[in-house]
């Protein structure tokens, strides 16, 4: 496990270099700069501001300078939020995205797994035929459709929940529900397919033949083994939930990192965009590694694959 982790970390270095370079070039090639505003700055003021941030130097020098800072763990100052380091912006907004992502993840599991298991156990019967199309419906109601609808029902019509903000505990309910439902549908289908396959295996038959309690067979033998492919999907899901919350954050006005990122890209806030992209990339790489390690731990045979 240690050697796998080490190998993956070494492999991640060229990936991160590639991402840093590509994002850097892309940002600089794009039209517009961080200090082009609708109300144009006086040329001498603009020149001074750009000189202050080192934007007047040749591109390769800026690039080396950025990489040098990066190696020392510095993401640089934001160009739009004057006086703020990118680390500080990420440090303040990411926990919000993380919390939202985790709640959504719990919602997705709490809805998806039981539905998938129930549908598999009642394969082909009425419950299955009811549950599966319903869960397919979940895939067709992406967050930007479900979000407004939930808002309409629970805050406009019933007035139970706040429509916007991230203050009280109840503010977590709607965003998490909106985000989680979409993924719950995938988890349910995956769980159903996987469990159906496991239930066909000989060891399930023999466990039943031994006279084990049926609930025990399902819970201990079948579900546990059926979880593997689901787990492979959960890694990207959790990463997606935590990094992909732009839409949710903009619907419910949640002050998370996604909002900052989209805004920074619009503003050409070079350092903030680069910092966020690199941060997300590291996060995803870590998640992938973590999921692989868990899978190896659950099923040592998959190490060879």
């Amino acid at each position, binding site marked *: 496990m240690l050697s796998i982790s080490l190998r993956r970390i070494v492999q*991640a270095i*060229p*990936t991160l270099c*590639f*991402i840093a370079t590509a*994002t850097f070039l*892309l*940002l600089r*090639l*794009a*039209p517009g700069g961080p200090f082009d505003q609708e109300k144009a700055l006086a040329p001498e003021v603009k020149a001074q501001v750009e000189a202050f941030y080192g934007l007047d130097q040749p591109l390769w020098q800026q690039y080396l300078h950025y990489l040098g800072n990066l190696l020392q763990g510095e993401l640089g100052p934001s160009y739009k939020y004057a006086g703020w380091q990118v680390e500080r912006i990420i440090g303040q907004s990411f926990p919000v995205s993380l919390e939202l992502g985790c709640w959504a993840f719990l919602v997705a599991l709490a809805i998806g797994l039981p539905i998938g298991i129930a549908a598999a156990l009642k*394969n*082909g019967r009425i419950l*299955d*035929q009811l549950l*599966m199309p319903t869960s*397919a*419906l979940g*895939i*067709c*109601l*992406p967050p*930007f*459709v479900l*979000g*407004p*609808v939930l*808002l*309409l029902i629970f805050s*406009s019509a019933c007035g139970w929940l706040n429509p916007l903000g991230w203050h009280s505990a109840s503010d977590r309910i709607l965003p998490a529900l909106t985000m989680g439902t979409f993924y719950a549908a995938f988890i349910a289908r995956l769980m159903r397919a996987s469990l159906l396959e496991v239930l*066909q*295996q*000989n060891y399930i*038959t023999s466990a039943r033949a031994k006279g084990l309690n049926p609930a025990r067979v399902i819970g201990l033998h079948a579900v546990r083994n059926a979880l593997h492919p689901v787990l492979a999907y959960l890694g990207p899901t959790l990463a*997606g939930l935590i*990094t*992909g919350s*732009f*839409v949710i954050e*903009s*619907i419910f006005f949640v002050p998370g990192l996604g909002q900052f*990122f*989209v805004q920074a*890209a*619009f503003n050409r806030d070079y350092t903030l*965009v680069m910092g*966020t*992209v690199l941060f*997300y*990339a590291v996060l*995803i*790489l870590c998640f*992938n590694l973590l999921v692989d390690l868990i899978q190896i731990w659950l099923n040592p045979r998959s190490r060879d694959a």
Partner: protein
Amino acid sequence: MHKPAKELLKDHMSPTRKKSYWGLYCFLLIAALCWLVPFFSSHNIQETNLAKGAQAPSLEHWFGTDDLGRDLFIRTLAGGQVSIGVGLAATLVALMIGLPYGLIAGYYAGRIDSLMMRLVDVLYALPFTIIVILLTTLLGRSIALLFIAIGAVEWLTMARIVRAQTSAIRQNTYISAARTAGLSHRQIIRQHIFPNCIGTVIVYSVLTIPAVILLESTLSFLGLGIQPPASSWGALISEGAKKLDVYPWQILFPTALFSLTLFALNQLGENLRAHYDVNT
């Protein structure tokens, strides 16, 4: 695994096994409506009439009108042209890159394979949505760029799936037989490998279309995709979402058509998957 005949028969007749194309018919119907109806309608997508702003559905305006008095029925259908068009085009881009890439990597195996797949792995580790958002924000927002950006992301999975399929197929003895018989690599790929992974490719392509439509709509919802006066389902839903409690029909109809399309395509994909017995 031995099963009584009756049980096997039941398995075979379970809903997932049934070969059914209603998803395809449903999708074709929606696509036909989107492309044909605007030709025959008396309204067009640009025609504004402020006096008729934000009207509820009526006989004249089936889906109501938006704030500028534009007919929402036509706008929804025209938006469908864009959404479906981007979905198909980006899937085609993904297919054109991913299919040959996966075939070559899987067939030649060895060093070429590991090199090619290493590249895919590197790209896979990129935060996708973020890259697409970055691309569309930075490089302007033309439709062409949109589907190139989406296609550039979606080909990766296609390449992986085709490669896995190909490297399984090339283990078969009929491939060595073909080789002994003097067929060139090119002929083998074309005549033996490709036909054998076509099922997987079809299933995955069909499932990619709704994924792309979803991605496009998400981008348009964020204001990064299709720009006015053109429209897509995502853009319409985004407009409707802002006035949800006042003019609910503005979100209702685009959403209904959008969700129905996704539902139909997903069901078609699942049915084809069961039909071709693909596990990916």
